[in-house]
């Protein structure tokens, strides 16, 4: 479903190029559960934003469901984000003045979905993340784990193909973190393609396979069977040789 070929992403910082992604070739199938690991600054978030069509590659080809993303204009990209992709952020990014239900409703309002249908879907999405009894609570009245569950309900309410999560448990204690991870696992079991960026080996262990990044390159693929939690997979590829 996701095909990356020779993807480069270069930032210009004060006239100097910063190579955030270098020659990334990857293929991700529908329904896969991928974890992305790597040291800070290795390009994990940049890769995720690119897959989520929030950013464009400097060079290379990105095909999503057979369509070349590079050929799409701004409007078409926003439609892809709306219909194909859900984002979950480390910082939740709930709108503080809106209660949980209104936050979940948000993407549907802008997608022009009728009010009755919206109400039905909000109820179902909150039910799925076990937050039905907190529908009228504002974000500041919820714990971190609860906020992230509301954010997951919002990310999935439009029925996306792909869920992109950038350190979804980064701000959570292990108890609420594992609740969130179980939720994500369950959605993946139901067919959602899941890509999780994480620093935590326990989070990565749940994935089908792990992509390890270093300095903008994907340096290692580890299948779930080979993955050992005690091994930190951050290795300089030069050292490894």
């Amino acid at each position, binding site marked *: 479903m996701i095909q990356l070929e020779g993807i480069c992403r270069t930032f210009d910082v004060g006239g100097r190029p910063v190579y955030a992604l270098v020659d990334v070739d990857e293929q991700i199938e529908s329904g896969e559960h991928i974890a992305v690991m790597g040291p800070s600054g290795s390009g994990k978030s940049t890769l995720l934003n690119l897959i989520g069509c*929030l950013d464009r590659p400097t060079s290379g080809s990105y095909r999503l469901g057979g369509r070349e993303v590079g050929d799409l204009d701004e409007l078409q990209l926003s439609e892809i984000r709306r219909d194909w992709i859900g984002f979950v952020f480390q910082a939740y990014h709930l709108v503080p003045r809106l209660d949980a239900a209104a936050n979940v409703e948000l993407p549907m309002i802008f997608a022009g979905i009728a009010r009755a249908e919206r109400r039905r879907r909000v109820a179902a999405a909150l039910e799925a993340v076990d937050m039905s009894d907190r529908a009228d609570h504002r974000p500041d009245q919820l714990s971190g784990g609860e906020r992230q569950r509301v954010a997951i309900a919002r990310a999935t309410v439009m029925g996306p193909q792909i869920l992109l999560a950038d350190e979804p448990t980064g701000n959570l204690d292990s108890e609420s973190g594992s609740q969130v991870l179980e939720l994500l696992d369950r959605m993946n079991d139901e067919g959602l393609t899941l890509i999780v960026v994480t620093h935590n080996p326990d989070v990565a262990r749940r994935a089908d396979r792990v992509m390890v990044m270093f300095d903008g390159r994907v340096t290692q693929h580890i299948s779930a069977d080979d993955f050992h939690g005690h091994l930190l997979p951050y290795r300089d590829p030069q050292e490894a040789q």
Partner: protein
Amino acid sequence: MSIPDLLKFALRALSGHSLRTGLSMLGVAIGVAAVVMLTALGEGARRYVIDQFASLGTNLVIVVPGKTETTGALPGFGGVPNDLTLDDAEAIRRQVREVRNVAPVSMGTERVSFGERNRQVMIVGSTYELLEVRELGMGSGRFLPAGDWDRGAPVTVLGTTLVRELFDNENPIGKVVRIGEWRMRVIGVLDEMGMRMGIDFDEIAVVPVSTGMKMFNRASLFRVLVKLGSSGDVASAQRQILDLIIDRHGEEDVTIITQDAVISTFSSILGVLTLALGGIAAISLGVAGVGIMNVMLVSVSERTAEVGLLKALGVRRVQILAVFLTEAVLLSTAGGLLGLAGGWMAVRLLVQLYPAIPASPPTWAVVAALSISIGVGAIFGVLPARRATKLDPVAALAGR
């Protein structure tokens, strides 16, 4: 996205910052209230002046020597081809059917003195008929003697202020005053009546018209006031007077001013004044617009992460533009309505305090103020809204 959803979303965003929202609304409200109040005052002044002129009666026609169109000068000043004489006035009285009364007027300023005291005042030379034509009242004594058009008796009638200044508490009737080189006996004092059509009747001395013309060394009258009968047709009388003058002078060398013309002239001058006042007040709406822009810019930069989120959710650029524009327009519209209510109440209060001035804002000003205030939100909201749509979603979400 439906309009009600858009409005609801914008309202929720605004109500989150009630103080900021309220203050920027207040800016618009003050602007609109200023437009309403100032145009109401201007309109009040216009109606007040018109009422003043209208109270003199509509059946007054004024003949002024000189033709405005041909000389290009104001009537009565320079470029007068033929004198407007007492005989002309007499002819108008005799030959124009609708005429009830004619009062010839000559005018100048002279020093009036009594004993040690003296004052420079306006001297009106006229006849007995002025009393009725101008609806003057007598405080004491008599007005100029009737029938004296060309003899010029050495008598004068004074205004009340002038009498007070020259005579203190003495009775002026029968006393002799000096007007320039002329010795005149005071035979009457006018009622106190204040300003009428630009002349303070309390500060004049009235003398017989032929005396006045000699006094100022003029062959021509200043003007001829013609009072028509109550059923008189103004247009027809105007035509007849003009024909008569052309017949006597061989050309059309007078200007005829009717009450209607005077009123419409003043009305249009004061209408322009109202417009100018409204325009000045509208500037404050521009200032209010800058206030709205400022508030919206703050709002956009505060909600950078929210804009990034909306983009990540697949919200289109135009929709983000619509969200922020709607907020700005809601702000300015609410402010406009507030200002309308405030301005209206202020005008009501003013009318209560000064019932003489019929102040009320003209409809066009109310409509314009409201639509400008809505437009202000739309125009000054564009820049902040565009800034929001241009945010890079990745940077916005990262709080950069």
